[in-house]
């Protein structure tokens, strides 16, 4: 069989066991002697695995792949990783800008809220299109703000704060009585929406979205994920104008709470409520951390303040339960 030892085809033949013993030995000598050539072999392995997963190998090649190539655990792992990546890219295809716009208009009620008749839709649609076509900044804003909005929406729809002692990140998330361990939502579903939210934020960032906003939302995703190190990195990257906002201060407090750095956490929650006395999540969190510090009276007082601000009945119940515990009932 004619072969060019170090070309892609030659390496593929080698990996599929299609070379004669003599040719194989000669090739292996060349590969062993040269770091560069050996690296090309490893790249050829990656390419071959990709071809197998994509279904572009012939029947004979598939048989050889399964018999000659898949001989080691390392190669099985290569197959698993590429197969899973292919599935991931199939489930997360790149979406064109106009497809996103029409998807957003169809699916999101808040955009067309209250506009049920087609004629009523027409005028604002023309206005939006005119704005987008007529203004470079309008288009840019849409490309940067929309993915951020979608990411935050994803978190709101999927993430629930466990009522038993869990601090509330900024973002208005609902409460649940089930801990993550007891939740019927499996890790795969959790990882899926978090990964998707991260992708949307990356997209916004690539389109030139406000960097501070990007860092803030990213930090929140990492906080929810439990990746505190990354969350802290993101929070520290937020510029001075936004780092002093109640929502960022609150998230910072949540991070330190999860690290069990109670005093540090309390400091941030206090700063958050000072910045915005109406920021209810921070009042709730302040109560939690004061409870941890054994400051029962202050914790109860924070809860009273919180209860004047909270309208959601589930969260109100959670706060009342906490009050009962503090009172020793």
């Amino acid at each position, binding site marked *: 069989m004619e072969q060019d030892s170090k070309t892609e085809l030659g390496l593929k033949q080698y990996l599929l066991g299609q070379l004669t013993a003599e040719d194989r030995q000669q090739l292996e000598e060349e*590969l062993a002697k040269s770091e560069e050539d050996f690296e090309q072999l490893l790249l050829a392995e990656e390419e071959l695995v990709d071809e197998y997963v*994509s279904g572009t190998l012939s029947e004979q090649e598939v048989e050889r792949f399964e018999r000659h190539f898949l*001989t080691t655990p390392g190669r099985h792992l290569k197959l698993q990783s590429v197969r*899973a990546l292919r*599935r991931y890219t199939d489930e997360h*295809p790149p979406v064109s800008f106009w497809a996103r716009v029409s998807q957003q208009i169809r699916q999101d009620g808040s955009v067309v809220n209250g506009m049920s008749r087609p004629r009523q839709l027409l005028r604002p649609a023309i206005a939006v299109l005119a704005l987008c076509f007529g203004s470079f900044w309008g288009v840019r804003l849409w490309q940067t703000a929309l993915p951020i909005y979608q990411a935050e929406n994803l978190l709101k729809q999927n993430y629930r704060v466990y009522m038993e002692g869990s601090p509330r990140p900024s973002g208005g998330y609902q409460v649940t009585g089930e801990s993550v361990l007891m939740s019927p939502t499996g890790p795969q579903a959790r990882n899926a929406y978090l*990964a998707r939210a991260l992708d949307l934020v990356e997209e916004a960032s690539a389109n030139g979205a406000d960097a501070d906003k990007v860092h803030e939302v990213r930090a929140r995703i990492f906080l929810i994920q439990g990746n505190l190190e990354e969350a802290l990195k993101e929070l520290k990257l937020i510029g001075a104008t936004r780092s002093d906002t109640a929502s960022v201060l609150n998230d910072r407090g949540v991070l330190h709470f999860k690290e069990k750095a109670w005093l540090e956490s309390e400091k941030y929650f206090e700063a958050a409520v000072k910045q915005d006395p109406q920021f209810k999540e921070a009042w709730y969190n302040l109560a939690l951390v004061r409870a941890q510090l054994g400051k029962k009276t202050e914790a109860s007082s924070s809860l009273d303040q919180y209860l004047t601000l909270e309208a959601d009945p589930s969260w109100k119940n959670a706060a009342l339960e906490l009050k009962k515990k503090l009172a020793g009932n």
Partner: protein
Amino acid sequence: MGRQLSAASRAFSSKAILLQAKGIVLTQQAFNALLAWLSPDREQAALRYEEVRQKLLQRFRHWGCFSFSEELADKTIDRVAEKKPDIYSGDCMPYFYCVARYIYLEWSRQPRLEPMPSGDWADNRQTVDKECEYECLQHCLTRLPRESRRLVVEFFQDERRKKIDHRKRLAGQLRITPNALRIRVHRIMIVLRSCMEDYLKKRISLK
């Protein structure tokens, strides 16, 4: 430091005994030649030996051998130790790496016929279903740095001819050659697979 040197020395001596226990016919002369090649001072040779072993371990992990990196690193040193002294000269690492590449190629060619040690995750690959592998991938993707994640996901998009054009375009955007792009992605995949291996091991041990 003195205690560390003695410990290294003891470990090194145990290795010598192990080689003989494996039935490797290693003359004292050849063994001393290997030590002398690593360093004229025996204590330093012991430290250098450990350094060489660590580098080989890293190299085998880089090549995707994860669970078997220790076995293959030891095999590499054994093979080098078998060689005649007159071929030794200069810095030893390139020679070790060359032999390591031979070992990798031999190992890749031979299916593992002997039974896996109990608890070895690789032998349970049949039980690692595709949902688990996907969950593992998603978990490990979030642990990659942003740009790496983005690059590797973009790299694996599209099929057939579109894939080739897409990758050329991606390389162009990054201002690197297509081959350099493949190398970059390959290195990200090593990190990803290392994470996946650990994650899958944990999942299998929980089952």
